């Protein structure tokens, strides 16, 4: 299946693409359109674009919306959603110190990648790592 988002990917879109590949559509291919484009290619599911189904909702990031839409209840994914919320948008309450660092690293990945597709691939490594770290926490029953 084809998925489409705005070019110049960052923390939220890297998280979404990782989630799509891992839990929704292992054979996903990603298309990129310039920021601000409202005409989207037909036959591709748009994500993290204002106004589409898989977008920010009630102050939460698109990754968070995707968990809801695809009924993914894994506690570790939920924790990642909170981190991406804090990394991607201004939140009144901040409880995830990893958020700011994650945001910087994802921005940096885009800067060091030749194109958006590569940036998403590399971002996947970061989210694999984040998931593994948080899953290890969860196993120990701690939150640190």
């Amino acid at each position, binding site marked *: 299946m084809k998925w489409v988002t705005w070019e110049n990917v960052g923390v939220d879109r890297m998280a979404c693409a990782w989630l799509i590949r891992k839990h929704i559509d292992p054979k996903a291919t990603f298309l990129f359109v310039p920021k*601000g484009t409202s005409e989207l290619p037909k036959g591709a599911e748009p994500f993290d674009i*204002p106004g589409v189904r898989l977008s920010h909702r009630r102050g939460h990031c698109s990754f968070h919306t995707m968990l809801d839409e695809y009924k993914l209840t894994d506690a570790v994914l939920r924790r990642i959603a909170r981190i991406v919320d804090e990394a991607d948008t*201004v939140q*009144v309450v901040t409880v995830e110190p990893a958020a700011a660092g994650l945001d910087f690293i994802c921005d940096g990945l885009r*800067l060091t990648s030749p194109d958006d597709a590569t940036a998403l691939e590399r971002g996947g490594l970061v989210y694999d790592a984040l998931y593994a770290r948080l899953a290890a926490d969860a196993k120990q029953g701690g939150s640190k």
Partner: protein
Amino acid sequence: MVTSNRSHTRDCVSIVKPKHATEGATAWLLLAYKVPREPTSARVYVWRKMKQLGALALQDAVWVLPATSRTQEQFQWLEAEIVELGGEVTLWTAQPASENQGQSLQQQFEQQVDVEYREILDQLKKKARDLTALSRRYQQAHSRDFFQSELGQKVRQALLAAEGESKR
């Protein structure tokens, strides 16, 4: 919805604003919005977000931020949220008609963040100071420091120095 044009977006890809950007050459984001009178929580919510982003209200009518890829993204999502709350919103990128206006706008942003920085410096002078809380406040202020205030550097140094003292 008014969205920025493509070439502009390209120009704003750099994450960190160059310190010595040509005077008056900063592009600005202007956001005008209206949300329903009720519930009041929606109005408070949007206002609080503006404050957190460090946006300034011009003539209590239009909210403004210097245009960077980050602020553009933040405003664009806020735009979507305002629509979600049943409001109306327009977002523009703009250049002031005169250099003076751009400079005075920049000064207003500098003053706004310097107030926060000065409060932290004052708190740091006190004996019973909470370094953890103050460093957190510094981080928050820093996220609204769009023009790299020198005072911000001073606060950072003061916090690090204070940490050094407390380790002795």
